């Protein structure tokens, strides 16, 4: 695909001015890293603050009297448990309990929900969701992905930097809650969420204000050591925090229970959801494979797709593997037969024909110290 066919976020020019190395990411031209490089960007986010353009994510509004019931039927978490201004992580599930996409659901009111979905799956999700709407559902759906930029400011100093730009008392926004208010004079949704394993916020605003907000966050964060961060750091940060990536740990042929998402798979709901029966049955008889974390105990780096062996037997594949810049280890996630999915299990990763030792460890690999 040539670069002029790629979709661009409203921050495309800003990335290029900052020396962003632009790549094709699911049809979007995005910065994989800036001049500091992935290791510095990663560690800036762990120790100070990192700024991420996530405007490529999709936004879908669900409005109407049946908004909650409708979204609850399509997703595995329990939307009825959300209060106004609260959000949760969930999955659009298929009949087999596989994952059409993972997403955040924001409750603005009893008749107004916002779904924030992955960039590469936005069109598929839209088809899926609109296809599930019946004449009985009093809901209006709107794909508003073009109407928002999304900027994530993450890390221990994210709050103090963002606070310089808003009168909204950020301390009052709890983890996975949100507020609406002005950021640098612009109407925005301020959500205390992220994909890095750090404290931080995701700010949604109209795309024409993207550059202004982005530049101001960088300027106001300069003294705090903020760095703009590309997709490479976003990936290593989420991997250290053992957060799943759609297409790697999550997919239509992998159930939520296998992916370790039992905590958002609420089987005991009155009205059920797509795939509930399949998941209940699977839970009853036990999953055959489970997602585990491992770290290399010999020199070598496991990469996405590498084969995993126990003894002579190939038992699974690496779904995500990378050096972990903050932990300074080589880590990965893999699906293993349930009987081997236990801490301390010794593995061999086939690294270009060489069997290199690894061991199953608890996940997340990295957990921030909570104040």
């Amino acid at each position, binding site marked *: 695909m040539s670069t002029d066919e790629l979709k661009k976020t409203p921050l495309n020019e800003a990335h290029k001015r900052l020396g962003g190395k632009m790549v094709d990411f699911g049809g979007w031209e995005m910065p*994989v890293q800036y001049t500091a*490089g992935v*290791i510095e960007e990663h560690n800036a986010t762990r120790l100070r603050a990192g700024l991420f353009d996530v405007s490529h994510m999709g936004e879908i509004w669900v409005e109407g009297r049946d908004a909650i019931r409708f979204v609850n039927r399509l997703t595995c978490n329990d939307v009825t448990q959300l209060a106004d201004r609260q959000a949760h992580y969930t999955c659009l599930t298929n009949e087999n309990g596989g994952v059409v996409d993972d997403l955040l659901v924001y409750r603005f009111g009893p008749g107004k929900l916002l779904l924030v979905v992955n960039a590469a799956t936005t069109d598929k999700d839209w088809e899926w969701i609109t296809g599930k709407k019946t004449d009985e559902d009093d809901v209006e759906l709107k794909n508003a992905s073009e109407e928002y930029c999304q900027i994530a400011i993450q890390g221990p100093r994210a709050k103090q930097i963002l606070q310089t730009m808003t009168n909204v008392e950020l301390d009052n926004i709890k983890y996975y809650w949100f507020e609406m208010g002005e950021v640098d004079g612009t109407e925005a949704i301020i959500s205390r969420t992220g994909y890095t394993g750090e404290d931080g916020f995701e700010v949604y605003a109209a795309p024409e204000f993207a550059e202004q907000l982005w530049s101001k966050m960088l300027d106001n964060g300069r003294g705090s050591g903020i760095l703009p961060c590309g997709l*490479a750091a976003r990936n290593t940060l989420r991997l250290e925090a053992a957060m799943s990536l759609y297409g790697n740990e999550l997919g239509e042929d992998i159930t939520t229970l296998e992916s370790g998402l039992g905590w958002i798979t609420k089987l005991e709901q009155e009205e059920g959801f797509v795939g509930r029966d399949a998941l209940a049955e699977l839970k009853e008889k036990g999953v055959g494979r489970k997602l585990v974390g491992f770290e290399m105990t010999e020199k070598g780096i496991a990469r996405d797709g590498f084969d995993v062996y126990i003894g002579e037997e190939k038992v699974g594949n690496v779904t995500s593997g990378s050096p972990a810049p903050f932990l300074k280890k080589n880590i990965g996630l893999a699906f293993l037969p349930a009987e081997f999915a236990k801490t301390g299990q010794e593995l061999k990763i086939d690294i270009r024909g060489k069997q290199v030792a690894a061991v199953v460890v608890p996940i997340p690999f990295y957990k921030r110290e909570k104040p």
Partner: protein
Amino acid sequence: MSNIPENLRYSKDHEWVSVDGDTATIGITDYAQHSLGDVVYIDFPRAGDRFASHEAFGSVESVKAVSEIFTPIAGEVTEVNEGLNDSPELVNSDPYGEGWMVKLKMDNPGEVDGMLSGEEYEEYLSSQD
């Protein structure tokens, strides 16, 4: 723009060679380190290993990717840069100096003459864009 010292010879696989008598020092170019991003690990050959020209003698891994390294010339490895085991980032910060990778006793020092000059490598790079 990549840094391309005039006094070195280059391969189309983005290795550089500097010659001292019949010993060649080999590393990867500034362009190569920049494409790879932060280098975290180098899989070296051992001293005494022999390689034919254009054979892969190891690999260099960044956070994002892995890339094989090829020797542009045939010979026997006499030394590897052990310092890179602890400080692989030298490949990024000083690719033509402390980021060197292996020293090779060349079978045929004349082979170097077939490699690209700095100017030719620069032309090659711009033709690739």
